């Protein structure tokens, strides 16, 4: 078919096609662009025909991939041409060349609007098409009413109305406010009675968009959707031209069922019954036929029906029917159906009760993991990941590992991350977990992120039974000829810590271990060398009796690196060298690493975050989100450990006398990268370790948050505080005469929970108490998750709440017995009556065998939970601030002994307490202005304002002014904020260390007795 009349364009296209190579093509195109440019310049001489021709050429050149940065104006100007042929070209080319953000489009709005409200039907169509395809917010605001009018007009023909429907859909997407819900919902229902199938199809698309945002307003559309679906499925009254390969408009069927998925439920029993009849008919009546298109169309309908059935929570029978269908699909030869079978089976996992039926297909799904098609492999991986639980984790993870060696590049990272997460979540025993991760590093080291190996180090550190095993495994991997650098890191770390546990085995003498590790040194990068140096120092320390030869070798290495250009390496080399000459003191400095504080697994968190990121407001995804939030609680139950800070792993540990808070010491150390100065511990204080620890926890992954360890520079404070323990920790610890020791620091857990809403409140070898809180104004709902970690039941379980006067707390019934490996949930309802800093205490006890365990735990229902950050502008702030004048509503205090921190850290601290820092209100950059709303039953919502004036010359003091409309609130809030800011020295008392020294069997007892780390440091220097 020749191009009628546009010879110039045809000639140009032929020329381009005849070009031998890209270079020639470019020359030809450049020539043409030059030509068009000159012709456009003297626009006067251009006939409409010529203008059209050049604009088409421009579009063609643009399509070939060349930049066309001129002539847009000419294309847009054609839109206002009076004749159809020019106008048509103008509209089409404009909508291809420009996107909605282009400035020129704004120039055309008026012309477009005139065409839309004009009488010429063909012009209306052109204009609606352009707006529907590239209209942006500007168009939405100025054109929506006109488009709505066309859609509901009885005088407009279907060809205009169907375009108007989709045009309105576009405008609605750009700005949902343009559709007024109240006025539109009835209209929408009327539109669904439309006889013309084209208009109905477009209207259904519009409805899908509307209900996805607000289903409540469109309830009246629900029965009409069901009617439409019935009519189509029974092929009643569907014109021949709207059947596609014998199927009554499959597209309209799909869209109708999509719209129905946005309504939470179908309540009317009659409607529900007829809907299920239709769905049943679709499920049973879809056969595989030879014709590809018919097959695709009927299966498009079938898969949408499956999704709708899942959404409606049909009876179990129908669900199993769906799973059976999907089971059939994942085994067929047709790749599209196989792909969709796997995809929908993954969605099906969200439905309870069918997981077990899905598991029966495990073997088939694993086969799909080896499919030649990467799209199908991806689906299979997702499905396996989703269906994995304790019962099949071993099989699935091993299958993933096996597949890893042959998997394509594009999938390896995802694959290894998923395998690591599953191994952690569902490990039947920890040695298996270690095996899996080491295999993972061995097979796909490049794709194993640091988080993964940090995590395995944590597990090994926190589980003594695991240490010899891990050391042995690490030793075995080192014998392999070429191993990945990550493997060098992890094995060196583990062997540094625990190789002495292997000493009697052949090939595991300190010297042999050293040699096998040192062989790897020439192959590794600078990031690994510091770890190796630490390992050498540890090996040296463990060599008893000292091996002179080994010592010489290691010292030689240290002195070699003392002049290394990398600061981290140099520092370690210098320090280890100096320390190792000190003999016995080395033992203390290099004692085994303490257990890591418990935190949620970074990996699992990552996985959850990414799921949350992709989640949109679709029905399926909403459900996914609910599922993951449950999963979070479940994973809390696992022995989940903290965020490792292994990127700064100094293997040095301070012999703190009190040993009450080893993690604090460890944090202080690691931040300073194992430098000597760090032997000076952070002054223990009521709040600092925990608050900071938690803040740092999130930061530590990125890099060393240096300035926080500032207190070290003040040895006076440190020595004055020797042996200090967390004042608040005592309150709980002192009463506890139990034989069972808690895991992790109770006070630290409490403080962490003051800043976040879910996590572990308490853990010991038998039980883990997790908490998940939801705070709304002055009310809170806290769920306690009591998880029995044992294979035996816990009996006589009792929980009492000792609540202070300002909190009304109701605890639901706690069962007397927690069965083995089970978790029970106990919701608490909390109401805040008036402002107070006191906290409630949970008195919890249980029996395990003959042991009676009783703990008193503070509940993190603290003042800041009843705060809600509120942004405040200068116009609002100053009048409020002035109106609250003087005591008792406004209190001022100069606070001394403040924990030194940078202004930005202080701002972070406030923000994490729900006290919102409002920058820009105070002209002095050293001051902070904070606003928040406090909620209690007495005060209702009460605005609180705080101003902090800091002194950059002396960070240990500041002036604080607090104002609110309630005197008690002002006072309590002031004291609360003060507690968060200052470090209170506490006269020491010997507390039972929650973490007994068993963590460091090799440290000589003298280390624990030596009372003053500061003094010891002085001795060393």
């Amino acid at each position, binding site marked *: *078919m*020749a*191009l*009628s*009349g546009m010879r110039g364009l045809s000639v140009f*296209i032929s020329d381009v*096609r005849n070009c031998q190579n890209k270079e020639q093509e470019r020359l030809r195109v450049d020539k043409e662009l030059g030509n068009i440019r000159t012709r456009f310049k003297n626009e006067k001489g251009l006939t409409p025909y010529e203008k059209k021709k050049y604009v088409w050429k421009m*579009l*063609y050149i643009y*399509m*070939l*991939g060349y*930049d066309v940065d001129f002539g847009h104006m000419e294309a847009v100007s054609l839109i206002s041409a009076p*004749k159809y*042929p020019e106008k048509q070209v103008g509209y*089409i080319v404009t909508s*291809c060349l420009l*996107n909605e*953000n282009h400035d020129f489009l704004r120039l055309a709005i008026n012309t477009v609007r005139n065409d839309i409200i004009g009488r010429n039907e*063909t012009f209306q169509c052109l204009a*609606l*098409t352009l707006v529907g*395809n590239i209209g942006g917010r500007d168009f939405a605001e100025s054109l929506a009413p006109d488009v709505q009018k066309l859609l509901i007009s009885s005088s407009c023909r279907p060809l205009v109305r*169907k*375009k108007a429907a*989709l*045009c309105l*859909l*576009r405008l609605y997407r750009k700005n949902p406010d343009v559709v007024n819900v109240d006025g539109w919902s009835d209209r929408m229902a009327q539109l669904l009675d439309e006889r013309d*199938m*084209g208009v109905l*199809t477009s209207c259904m*698309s519009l409805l899908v968009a509307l209900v996805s945002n607000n289903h409540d307003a469109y309830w009246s559309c629900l029965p009409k959707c069901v009617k439409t679906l019935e009519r189509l499925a029974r092929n009643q009254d569907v014109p021949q*031209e*709207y059947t*596609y390969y014998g199927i009554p*408009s*499959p*597209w*309209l069927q*799909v869209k109708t069922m*999509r719209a129905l998925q946005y309504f939470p439920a179908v309540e009317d029993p009659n409607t529900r019954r007829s809907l299920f009849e239709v769905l049943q008919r679709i499920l049973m009546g879809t056969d595989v036929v030879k014709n590809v*298109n018919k097959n*695709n169309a009927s299966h*498009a309908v079938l*898969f*949408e029906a499956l999704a709708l059935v899942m959404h409606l929570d049909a009876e179990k029978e129908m669900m199993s029917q769906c799973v059976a269908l999907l089971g059939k699909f994942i085994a067929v030869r047709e*790749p*599209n159906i196989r*792909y*969709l079978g796997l995809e929908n089976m993954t969605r099906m996992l969200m439905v309870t009760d069918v997981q077990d039926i899905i598991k029966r297909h495990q073997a088939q799904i694993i086969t799909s993991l080896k499919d*030649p*098609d990467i*799209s*199908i492999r*991806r689906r299979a991986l997702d499905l396996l990941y989703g269906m994995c639980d304790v019962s099949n984790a071993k099989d699935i993870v091993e299958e993933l590992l096996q597949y890893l060696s042959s998997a394509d590049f594009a999938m390896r990272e995802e694959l290894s991350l998923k395998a690591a997460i599953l191994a952690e979540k569902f490990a039947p025993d920890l040695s298996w977990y270690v095996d899996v991760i080491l295999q993972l590093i061995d097979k796909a080291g490049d794709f194993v992120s640091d988080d993964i190996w940090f995590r395995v180090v944590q597990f090994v550190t926190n589980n003594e039974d695991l240490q010899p095993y891990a050391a042995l495994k690490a030793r075995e991997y080192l014998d392999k000829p070429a191993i990945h650098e990550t493997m060098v890191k992890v094995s060196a770390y583990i062997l540094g810590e625990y190789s002495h546990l292997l000493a009697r085995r052949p090939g595991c003498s300190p010297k042999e271990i050293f040699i096998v590790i040192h062989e790897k040194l020439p192959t590794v990068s600078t990031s690994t060398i510091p770890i190796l140096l630490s390992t050498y120092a540890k090996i040296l320390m463990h060599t008893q009796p000292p091996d002179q030869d080994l010592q010489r070798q290691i010292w030689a290495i240290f002195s070699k690196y003392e002049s290394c250009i990398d600061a981290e390496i140099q520092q370690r080399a210098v320090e280890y060298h100096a320390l190792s000459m000190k003999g016995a003191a080395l033992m203390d400095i290099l004692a085994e690493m303490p257990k890591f504080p418990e935190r949620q697994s970074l990996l699992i968190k990552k996985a959850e975050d990414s799921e949350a990121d*992709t989640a*949109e407001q679709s029905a*399926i*995804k909403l459900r996914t989100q609910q599922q993951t939030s449950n999963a979070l609680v479940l994973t809390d139950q696992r022995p989940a450990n903290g965020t490792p800070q292994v990127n700064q792993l100094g293997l040095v540990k301070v012999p703190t006398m009190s040993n009450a808070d080893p993690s604090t010491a460890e944090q202080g150390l690691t931040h300073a990268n194992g430098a000597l100065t760090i032997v000076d511990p952070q002054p223990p204080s009521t709040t600092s370790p925990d608050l900071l620890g938690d803040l740092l926890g999130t930061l530590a992954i990125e890099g060393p948050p240096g300035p926080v360890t500032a207190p070290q520079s003040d040895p006076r404070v440190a020595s004055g505080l020797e042996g200090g323990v967390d004042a608040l920790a005592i309150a709980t610890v002192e009463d506890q005469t139990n034989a069972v020791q808690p895991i992790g620091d109770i006070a630290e857990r409490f403080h962490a929970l003051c800043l976040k809403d879910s996590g572990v409140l308490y853990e010991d070898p038998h039980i883990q108490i997790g908490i998940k809180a939801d705070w709304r104004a002055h009310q809170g709902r806290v769920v306690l998750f009591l998880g029995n970690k044992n294979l035996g039941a816990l009996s006589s379980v009792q929980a009492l709440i000792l609540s202070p006067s300002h909190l009304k707390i109701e605890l639901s019934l706690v069962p007397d017995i927690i069965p083995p490996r089970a978790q029970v949930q106990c919701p608490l309802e909390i109401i805040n009556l008036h402002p107070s800093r006191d906290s409630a205490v949970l008195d919890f006890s249980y029996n395990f065998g003959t042991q009676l365990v009783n703990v008193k735990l503070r509940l993190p229902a603290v003042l800041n939970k009843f705060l809600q950050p509120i942004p405040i502008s200068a116009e609002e702030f100053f009048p409020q601030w002035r109106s609250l004048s003087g005591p008792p509503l406004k209190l001022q205090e100069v606070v001394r002994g403040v924990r030194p921190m940078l202004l930005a850290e202080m701002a972070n601290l406030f923000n994490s307490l729900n006290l919102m820092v409002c920058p820009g209100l105070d002209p002095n950059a050293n001051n902070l202005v904070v606003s928040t709303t406090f909620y209690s039953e007495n005060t209702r919502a009460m605005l609180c304002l705080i101003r902090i004036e800091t002194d950059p010359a002396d960070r240990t003091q500041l002036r604080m002014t607090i104002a609110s409309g309630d005197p008690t609130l002002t006072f309590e809030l002031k004291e609360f904020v003060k507690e968060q800011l200052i470090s209170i020295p506490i006269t020491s008392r010997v507390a039972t260390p929650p973490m007994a020294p068993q963590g460091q069997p090799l440290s000589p007892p003298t280390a624990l007795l030596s009372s003053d780390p500061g003094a010891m440091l002085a001795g060393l220097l």
Partner: protein
Amino acid sequence: MIHFVLLISRQGKVRLTKWYSPYTQKERTKVIRELSGMILTRGPKLCNFVEWRGYKVVYKRYASLYFCMCIDQDDNELEVLEIIHHFVEILDRYFGSVCELDLIFNFHKAYYILDEILIAGELQESSKKTVARLVAAQDSLVEAAKEEASSISNIIAQATK
């Protein structure tokens, strides 16, 4: 919704692009390059869906041309696959057994036709007959205008003889 439609030849030449979501010129070029690399290299017996940057691309090959449509992750893939076929059938009917050359020399017609099938990335008309009728009506409007123009120029030519 359909975010964009691409027609790419086996040699990687672009024959039609239509963007329903806003992409800048740079992004458009990048998307085309990435997707040609992914889709043109896929073997014949694989499924018609490719996962790409959180989206799905549904594609189908007809002779030397790949028709691709990019959709959201939870859209119905088969439905879109049949929109592609619906489009192809209409092109076929319009050109009379369409081939790549038709779409090269009459690329503007392909745009007209596509605009009668999709708006805002959604299907607007599923009747082939209706689409054919509307496209024919447009063609006759253009023809009429041309005849009118030539008759006027004839009159002028005669008047100035």
